[in-house]
């Protein structure tokens, strides 16, 4: 579903991604771990072109993302994204947050979008917050809304950029539960995370990024219990 080909990204002289190639299958849940500054977030943000790669390519559903002729807005509709800082639209109610994009992109008519939004809110236990503004929600509630907002576009893949890093500890669980259910329902997911428990339990594959390259990747059990490289060993000893 997603082919990443020799992806490189430089900010001025600073090389962040130094040649990443990988393939993500439909229905897979891939977790990306690594020390800060290793390029995890940049990698994720390159996938939907929030960052423009310096070189290399991302092929999504057979379409090159970096091709200037590609309709990037159309491609992004198929790639949901969840941010560390939620990025809900504070000037709109929860319901409007969720229905704005499907309606504006002509994916759905308003009533249809609202019905679907309500159903999704119900699934994450927030149906009573439909008319609330983001400022009235807790961090965990905001992030759950952000997840279902992305789901409203019926994406083929969901990208998570450290979705629990900005949350109070007691709210991490409720967000991870939503993500677990999503993974079990067969959603293709790419998750940048520091939640090793989640990576170990839910993901099909874990990718360890270090200094802009995939230093090690594989089945979570192998990776966590039998790390091969020294860098991963020292990283895991610090975070586990």
């Amino acid at each position, binding site marked *: 579903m997603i082919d990443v080909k020799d992806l490189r990204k430089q900010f001025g002289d600073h090389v962040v991604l130094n040649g990443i190639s990988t393939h993500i299958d439909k229905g897979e849940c891939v977790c990306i771990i690594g020390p800060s500054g290793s390029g995890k977030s940049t990698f994720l943000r390159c996938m*939907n072109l*929030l960052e*423009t790669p310096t070189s290399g390519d991302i092929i999504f559903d057979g379409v090159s993302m970096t091709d*200037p002729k590609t309709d990037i*807005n*159309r*491609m*992004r*509709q*198929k*790639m*949901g*994204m969840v*941010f560390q*800082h939620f*990025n*809900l*639209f*504070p*000037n*709109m109610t929860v319901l409007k947050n969720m229905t*704005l*994009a499907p309606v*504006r*992109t002509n994916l759905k008519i308003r009533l249809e979008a609202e019905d679907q939004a309500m159903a999704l809110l119900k699934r994450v236990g927030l149906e009573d917050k439909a008319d609330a*503004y*983001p*400022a*009235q929600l807790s961090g965990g509630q905001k992030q759950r809304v*952000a997840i279902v*907002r*992305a789901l409203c*576009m019926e994406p083929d893949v969901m990208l998570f950029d450290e979705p629990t890093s900005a949350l109070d500890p007691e709210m991490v669980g409720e967000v991870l539960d939503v993500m677990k259910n999503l993974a079990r329902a067969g959603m293709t997911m790419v998750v940048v995370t520091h939640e090793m428990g989640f990576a170990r339990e839910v993901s099909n594959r874990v990718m360890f990024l270090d200094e802009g390259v995939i230093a090690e990747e594989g089945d979570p059990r192998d990776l966590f219990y039998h790390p091969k490289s020294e860098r991963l060993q020292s990283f895991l000893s610090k975070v586990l």
Partner: protein
Amino acid sequence: MEWFEELKALAKSGQPLTFWQDFYVKFYQAFIEKDRWQQYLNGVGTTLLVTALALLIGVVLGVIVSVVRTAYDQQRPGHRNPLLAFLNAIFRVYVTVIRGTPMMVQLLVMGLVIFASSKEFAMVGALTLGINSGAYTSEIIRGGLMSVDIGQMEAGRSLGLTYTDTMVHIIIPQAVKAILPALGNEFIVLLKDTSMISVIGGKELVYFARGVISRTYEPMFPFLGTALIYLILVMLFTWLLGIFERRLRASDRR
């Protein structure tokens, strides 16, 4: 009426008037004699019309200039739009020239050079004020657009919304809320700056006040009255703005 004529005759005969008698005569001359209050009202009408027109021109110009300049700054590398670069260069010159020259000089140039043959003095004045206000408004709006968290643009775009849709539905509404006090300030300055269009013959409040003075040779009441009218207008404006601001703050309630 009769009392006024009596007092006037009294004054003419050289007899000194008491303070209150003098006060009454001058007040009467300034506002009531020959229904002069109608002239002030006329002036206020023009002042408000010019303010409204200039405000409209200023806001439209300000939005266009600020959005183009922000869009130019936010282009993705490798996706430079030559039209945007061209407009950006023009708008930068516009802002520099307008902010770099005095309002009064701009009025004189517009009224007596560029539109020298026009007799629509008030309209030329409104246009000039609008163009002037647009430059300042554009910088205020640009500041507002830049103050909105970059994550908002990213969230909008990541959902597949176009740059324009994200700007219109997400960024601009938040920016407007942030800059409303500064915009209010600019609008108040604009309202009071309309008093300058009398130098090119615009028939607004100050123009008529001076007209009255040229008849009565008494500047105190016409000018005090003019000042009071401006004060009331500005207070009204501030009050309306306050209501608008409270409405926009609806989403802040917790």
